[in-house]
């Protein structure tokens, strides 16, 4: 009873807003939301959800807080940047202070094909705060396979765009954009065009508004449009979203879509869909892993998908990566690659110091070191590294071979550069 009174007091102004009311507020309290990315959009989205009273928030991010984030990423401060905290960790700490009642699950991880579906498995809505088209397409696949609404948002410069894509009502992002993964043809990002905070907040605010409508059962109030805006020149345009594309294996409904789904499940990328028995087993395993991680989350203040906390967590975050695969991350000067997760952070620290690096940050989630040429190596506990300031991919691979291969020479031999 006390708890209910507190809820009523806390959310009184939001409950007074007629379309939400007591019933809408209750629905928010029962809702689970996944926010992917805790950068500018993601941090703002997470805050909107937590303040509004969403019962459970799952937050995933692969990056850490830097000074250059602070002008637009409103959850973080100088202390976070100084401590080089992973964004998911710093965000969870802030959000818990904002609303101690909410269940917050924070994951320091890169979202990939393997974990996208598991992360989205048991949520009511997915909010997109990512910074690249490839991850968005994976999220779209995962959401449409499972019938979960996806709120896309993107921002660059002073402009942005957003749309709530509802499986069954609209076509998926893959159909809108075409099959080819995007981002390599000069489409604008924050790194090329810069970005201003008001543009971020406008897009995030519109994403959050659609999320609130969807979560409180205000379906008829959903915009149903693809919206483009510019905060600097002030302009807003919107266009009606198209219905599902009949033969698409993700958003389609007809016989050809079903056939395409079977085809995908049998011969295609087997992790895309969970139709086969093998896949279902894998699904169970990853869900168990997710539960394991979640328990660790509940026990700890904040958590990561770290083998030391959850032995099964590895299954979720792709422990079987063998060779280093170089991914260009957020613009042209950060490269990401997978490491052998069997090496601990303290062991990495020892190796990097022995190799002549200066350690510039060391916390339980990551280790940051500076090479003699002042390139930065960031190693995350889950077995992932960022190489910053290398300029060229060739140089990034050199750094990898010199500092990060495990000494047996095995990894370097297997290395494939894929970007």
């Amino acid at each position: 009873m006390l708890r209910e009174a507190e809820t009523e007091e806390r959310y009184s102004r939001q409950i007074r807003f007629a379309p939400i009311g007591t019933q809408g507020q209750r629905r928010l309290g029962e809702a689970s939301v996944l926010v992917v990315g805790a950068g500018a959009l993601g941090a703002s989205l997470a805050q909107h959800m937590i303040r509004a009273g969403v019962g459970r928030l799952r937050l995933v991010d692969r990056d850490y807080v830097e000074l250059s984030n602070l002008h637009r990423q409103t959850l973080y401060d100088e202390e976070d940047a100084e401590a080089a905290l992973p964004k998911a960790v710093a965000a969870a700490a802030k959000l818990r202070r904002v609303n101690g009642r909410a269940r917050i699950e924070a994951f320091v991880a890169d979202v990939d094909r393997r974990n996208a579906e598991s992360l989205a498995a048991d949520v009511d809505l997915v909010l997109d705060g990512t910074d690249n088209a490839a991850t968005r397409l994976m999220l779209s696949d995962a959401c449409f396979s499972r019938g979960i609404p996806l709120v896309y948002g993107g921002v660059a410069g002073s402009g942005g765009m957003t749309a709530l894509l509802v499986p069954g009502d609209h076509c998926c992002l893959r159909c809108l954009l075409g099959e080819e993964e995007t981002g390599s043809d000069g489409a604008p990002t924050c790194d090329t065009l810069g970005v201003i905070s008001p543009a971020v907040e406008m897009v995030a605010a519109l994403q959050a508004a659609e999320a609130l409508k969807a979560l409180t059962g205000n379906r008829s109030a959903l915009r149903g449009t693809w919206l483009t805006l510019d905060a600097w020149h002030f302009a807003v345009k919107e266009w009606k979203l198209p219905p599902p594309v009949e033969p698409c294996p993700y958003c389609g409904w007809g016989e050809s879509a079903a056939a395409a789904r079977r085809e995908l499940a049998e011969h295609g990328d087997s992790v895309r869909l969970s139709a086969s028995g093998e896949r279902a087993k894998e699904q169970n395993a990853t869900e168990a892993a997710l539960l394991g991680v979640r328990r660790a989350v509940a026990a700890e203040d904040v958590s990561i998908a770290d083998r030391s906390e959850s032995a099964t967590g590895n299954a979720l975050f792709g422990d079987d990566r063998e060779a280093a695969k170089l991914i260009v991350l957020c613009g042209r000067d950060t490269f990401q690659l997978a490491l052998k997760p069997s090496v601990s952070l303290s062991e990495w620290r020892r190796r990097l110091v022995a190799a002549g690096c200066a350690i510039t940050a060391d916390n339980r989630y990551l280790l940051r070191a500076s090479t003699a040429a002042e390139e930065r190596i960031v190693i995350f506990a889950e077995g992932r590294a960022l190489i910053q300031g290398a300029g060229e991919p060739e140089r990034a691979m050199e750094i990898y071979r010199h500092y990060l291969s495990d000494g047996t020479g095995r990894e370097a031999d297997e290395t494939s550069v894929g970007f």
Partner: protein
Amino acid sequence: MKRPLDFKLYVITGENYHPGRGMLEVMEAALRGGADIVQLRDKMSPKRELIEKAKRLKELTAKYGVPLIVNDHPDVALAADADGVHLGQDDLPIEAARELLGPGRIIGISTHRIEQARAAERAGADYIGVGPVYPTGTKPGRKAVTTAYVAQAAAEIGIPFVAIGGITETNAEEVLWAGARRLCAVSAIVGHDNPESVCRNLLGKINAWHLGEQVALAESVSLSVPVSLSAPMPAPGDVREIDVVVNGRSERTQAATLLELAAEYKLEGRSVIAELDGAVVPRQLWGETPLQGGGSVEFVHFVGGG
């Protein structure tokens, strides 16, 4: 009285990039491809040799009505009757070069940050170089300024500026996106087997953005994300033509479907969202979406940041 300087595609010599081919031969190919300003850069040759090269290059560029700029040396520029000089930040100050060259010749200077660009504009430079946008072999060891500086220059600088450094056909769009309207390339052009076609392609991209600006101006609202459109090439023969509004601008086209229209604007393989008469059209339906006269189409770039 010199005529106001304008150009789109700036090509610089780089003889080390084309061993076995003569400098004049390569530069003539670039000029045929549409280079509309040329710089002689040669840090190796002794001055006398440089003057000879400059004279021969000047004859060539004059044939195409294109100005010749000499890197670093006002005296060489004068001796060869070149049209101007290009300075680095550590070379002769602009004022001193102006005194040597007089008001009639062009003076340009390389800048690597906005303070240098402002100073150059104040000192009376006719144009500035902005870069290196990307890491480049022509200037090893110089940190790339990224397209962020290009955007800054576009917002602030009144004199013509040319983006330079590691620019290729692949990344040109990104530089243009950031606000550059003049591009410069060295290795991508002179190091290529066919400098003429590279120039033609780069110029096509630049022209597309010039037109894109006109399109944006024609719109009652100006979004930061409209796709720039180059004018469709009319195909020969007697074909049905209709008038459609594309990104706010009335266009005559022979395209029968949205896909054909997108192809006319060279949007295949690019992350673009298309709208027809107020509704988004899924990519794979472009081919079966007919265009009607009076229809309104918008192409917008998919925004990837977050």
